[in-house]
Structures are given as structure tokens and as C-alpha cells.
């Protein structure tokens, strides 16, 4: 009964979220001329762009629901109330619905689509030619960062040809195709997590986290491709077979050629670390890149948390409880970062301060709580 209730809750909340997301469709982008769609979109768009406090509240409610369901699913898995088959069904249904959502909190997917179009339709080198240099390119109307050459490595660029072709030149179909492609990588990642840990808890911890749902399944960020290749690489490099090691290095090299962040993983490999020590160091190195270098370049983007999240869940909870808790606290704080823009409609002004506060508060609360827990356990340990 509980299993069904959980599944039904996910179905209802994700379906509503998908409908809600179409209010945020770019005003220059007409996804369909169907009167039903146009009517519904007109109403949703007015809500999204004119009723900002209300829409921010609705988004916050969705976040709360997703986090509550996440905690519930995790607890049920821990108590063995959810078995493997139930977990697969819940994840498949959730992804299957959310993949149809509009990318409401990030425009990166349109950047992927336009870059792929530059290479596979215009046959131009996207590292040399910017989309904006073809003024009559239709996707310029809804692509941000069109005044930049390709931002991602050749692995992603070549892989993006698959969803580009499957989009058949239709914007909506291409968007869904890109999201589906990235979601398939996520499913591959979940399989790998299970293969490494043999724990369904780890699968739930990663696969149903709202940050993963929103940043990967809804927004279609390619960071998951980089991380799945990195985990595959590290996993295979620990095996004794030469073939496995060779494939492992290739996977790691391909991962580095998606975005570059996983280049730091060469350090623990050079130190010949294995098992949880390897994963722990990988976690902290990628966390350091996230917390130190990304704000120097731009800012703390929520989807960058995927980098260290994957390594947090492949370690057993009893030894990596702090890392896992920290990641979940970050996932809350980072998803809250979308609220100021949704509320105000612009990034500047109090936006940066609010975004920092919304991230720092949940993480800070978690760190204080975990330090107290550790002190109490030490204190109790001394007494006994």
C-alpha cells in the first residue's frame, strides 16, 4: 500500500510539475500551434511571468514535495519496504514523466542544441564559429550564450549528434531527445552505482534526489555524462584485468573531454588509492573544484553538485555519512538558488546575496548539526 502511495505521489507531483514547467517557455519559442497548447501555455505563461511571488511559492512547494518524497523513498528502502523492482518502477515512472518537462530553471539545453546544430547541420566547427555569426539561425531567438564558441569538450560535442539527429529538426522533439539521452546516461549511472555498492539505498540516494531530478532529467545537463564515464573509469581501473584497465583509462579520458573537471581524478589514481579511499578522495577533490574554482569562473551552479554527489553515494553510509549528508544539504541549498530569479525576474540586485544565503543556511545548519552529533557521540563514548 505504502509503495503504491509513494508511486502515486510521484506520478501526481511530477505530472503537475511538467504542466507547471511549460509556463516558463521562452517568449520567442513557439513549441506548438495546437489551440489547446496555446490556451494552456498562455495561462501558464501569464502566471510564470506576471505572478512571480505566487509562482515562486508554487516552485518552493514542488521542491518541498520532492524532498519529502525523497526522504520517504529512502526510509522505505532502508527498512526494506521498497525492493529492487519497486525502486526501478518508481525511478522509471518519475523519469518517464519528468523528461517531458520544459527546462524551466536553466537554458543550457538550448545551448547544447544550438551547438550540435552548428556542427551537424551547418557543418561548422563550433570551437571557431559562434551561433550568433549566423544571424538567420532560427534558434538564436531562444538560445542564451549564443555569442560564445562551444563550451564543452569533444566527447559531448560528438555524443550530442545522437539526440540532434533524433530531434528531426523539430525544437520540442530535439529538446526531449536531448533530455532523454542525458536521462539514459543517468540510468546507466544508477546501474553503475548498484554495481559498485550492491545497495538500493545508494541508488535512491542519488536517483531520486530532487537536484538530480531537476538538473539532469528536467534541465538535461551533460554533467551526468562526464560523471558516469568517470565512475566507470575509476571502477574499471581498480580491476586486475589489463583490458578493464585500458577501458577504464579510455572512459576517464572521455570523461575529462566532456567538461574537464574530472581531470583532478588522476591525482588519487597516481596515489594508487583503491575502494572507499579512492572514492572519498575523488569526492573531496571534485568538491574542492566545485567550491573553489567554479565561483572564480562564474558561480555555484546547482548541477555542478552532480560531480561530487556520485562519489558520495558509492561509499557506504556508515563511513561516508558526513559526505552524504553534506551533499544532500547542498542539494537543498543549491536548488533554493533558483528562487530569487524566479521571484524578481533578474539576476542582479540582491540576487547574488540571496542566492549565497539560501545555499549557505542549509549547509551551515547541517555542518553545525553534524559537529554537535560528533561531539555528542564522542562525549557518550568517553562516558561509556
Amino acid at each position, binding site marked *: 500500500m505504502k509503495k503504491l502511495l509513494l508511486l502515486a505521489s510521484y506520478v501526481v507531483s511530477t505530472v503537475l510539475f511538467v504542466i507547471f514547467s511549460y509556463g516558463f517557455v521562452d517568449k520567442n519559442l513557439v513549441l506548438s500551434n495546437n489551440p489547446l497548447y496555446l490556451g494552456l501555455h498562455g495561462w501558464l505563461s501569464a502566471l510564470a511571468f506576471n505572478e512571480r511571488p505566487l509562482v515562486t511559492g508554487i516552485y518552493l512547494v514542488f521542491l518541498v514535495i520532492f524532498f519529502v518524497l525523497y526522504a520517504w523513498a529512502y526510509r522505505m528502502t532502508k527498512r526494506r519496504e521498497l525492493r529492487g523492482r519497486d525502486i526501478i518502477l518508481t525511478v522509471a515512472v518519475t523519469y518517464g514523466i519528468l523528461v517531458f518537462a520544459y527546462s524551466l530553471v536553466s537554458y543550457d539545453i538550448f545551448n547544447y542544441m544550438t551547438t550540435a546544430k552548428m556542427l551537424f547541420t*551547418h*557543418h*561548422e*566547427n563550433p570551437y*571557431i*564559429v559562434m551561433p550568433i*555569426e*549566423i*544571424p*538567420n539561425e532560427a534558434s538564436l531567438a531562444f538560445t542564451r550564450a549564443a555569442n560564445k564558441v562551444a563550451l564543452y569538450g569533444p566527447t559531448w560535442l560528438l555524443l550530442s549528434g545522437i539526440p540532434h539527429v533524433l530531434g528531426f529538426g523539430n525544437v520540442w522533439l530535439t529538446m526531449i531527445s536531448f533530455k532523454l539521452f542525458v536521462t539514459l546516461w543517468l540510468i546507466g549511472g544508477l546501474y553503475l552505482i548498484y554495481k559498485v555498492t550492491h545497495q538500493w539505498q545508494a541508488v535512491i540516494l542519488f536517483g531520486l534526489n530532487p537536484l538530480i531530478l531537476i538538473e539532469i532529467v528536467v534541465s538535461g545537463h551533460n554533467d551526468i555524462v562526464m560523471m558516469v564515464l568517470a565512475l566507470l573509469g575509476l571502477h574499471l581501473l581498480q580491476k586486475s584485468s589489463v583490458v578493464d584497465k585500458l577501458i577504464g583509462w579510455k572512459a576517464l579520458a572521455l570523461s575529462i573531454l566532456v567538461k574537464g573537471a574530472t581531470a583532478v581524478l588522476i591525482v588519487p589514481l597516481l596515489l594508487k588509492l583503491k575502494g572507499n579511499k579512492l572514492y572519498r578522495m575523488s569526492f573531496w577533490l571534485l568538491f574542492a573544484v566545485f567550491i573553489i574554482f567554479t565561483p572564480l569562473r562564474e558561480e555555484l551552479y546547482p548541477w555542478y553538485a552532480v560531480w561530487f554527489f556520485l562519489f558520495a553515494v558509492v561509499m557506504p553510509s556508515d563511513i561516508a555519512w558526513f559526505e552524504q549528508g553534506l551533499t544532500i544539504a547542498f542539494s537543498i541549498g543549491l536548488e533554493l538558488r533558483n528562487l530569487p530569479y524566479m521571484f524578481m525576474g533578474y539576476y542582479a540586485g540582491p540576487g547574488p546575496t540571496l542566492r549565497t544565503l539560501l545555499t549557505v543556511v542549509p549547509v551551515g545548519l547541517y555542518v553545525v548539526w553534524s559537529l554537535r552529533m560528533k561531539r555528542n557521540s564522542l562525549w557518550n563514548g568517553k562516558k561509556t
Partner: protein
Amino acid sequence: MVSAVILLFLGTFFLHNNVFASYVLPYPSYMPGNKLYRLSRLIDTFNKYWYFGNIAQVKYHLGLSDKYLVEAKTLFDYNQYLLAIDALHRSSDQFAAIMPNVLTAEQSGDDMTQFRSEIQEASIAHKTVITTLLQTTPNEFLWQPERASATRLYIHNELSTALSIQ
């Protein structure tokens, strides 16, 4: 005061029509004799494959045309006429290779208005350099290397040909 503000306001609408960003040629790159010159030329050759696509090819040929013209001008300034004419030939060849790519891009549906305007500006900048060279160089020059036969260089003819290609 009010009239000054009105004038300034109107000026923003009308005066800007006469203002345009002039095309800037690059600084001279490695020159013949430098250890890295051959490497630089080799990279130029390989870049042809990296700059695939019609628009990228336009950028490639225009960039090299600029680079070799600046190389030619520097060599003319130092009276290195033989090398200068070779660089001038290369610059002209690269410039001539631009338009076929523009046309192919247009045939495939790409709006090349911006590039056409950029090429026109580049052409004006190139013509200015070549015209200046016509005024500062001798009409002909007998290039006499120490251990080889002499070569008569028809400098003005070469410059005029380069001018006609622009």
C-alpha cells in the same frame, strides 16, 4: 543649456551614422629567420583542417591574408623585397580564397551580410597598406644573393596585382 541637451540628444541619432569601427590588422607574427617561423607556417597549414566549414574557412583565409600582408609590409619596410613579394603572393592567394566560401555559405542558406561587410572593411585596410607600399618602394629591384643568380623584382607590378585582387 536646454538647447545643448537637445543637440546632444539629436546627435546620438544622427552623428553615429558617420562613425564605424575601422578594421584592425594584426601585429606582425614570427618573421622569416625566426626559429619559430617554420613552425608558425606549419600550424597555418594544419589549421586549414581545424577551420572546417564555410564560415570557419572565411575566418581562416581572412586571418591568414591579414597575417601575410602584415608580414609582407614589415619585410618591405626592411627592404627584404624577395621575401616580401612571397608573403604578398600568399596574402593575395588567401584573400582570393575567401569569396568562394562566402558564396557556398550563402547557397546553403546562411546569412553572410556581416561577413561581407567585414571582408569589405578588410579589403579597404589591405588596399591602404598596399597603396602606401606603392609610394614607398622602388618600381623594380634587382635582387642579388651572394651565391645565386640575380632576380629582377617588378615590385610595383606585384603590388598592383595584389591591389586588383582586393
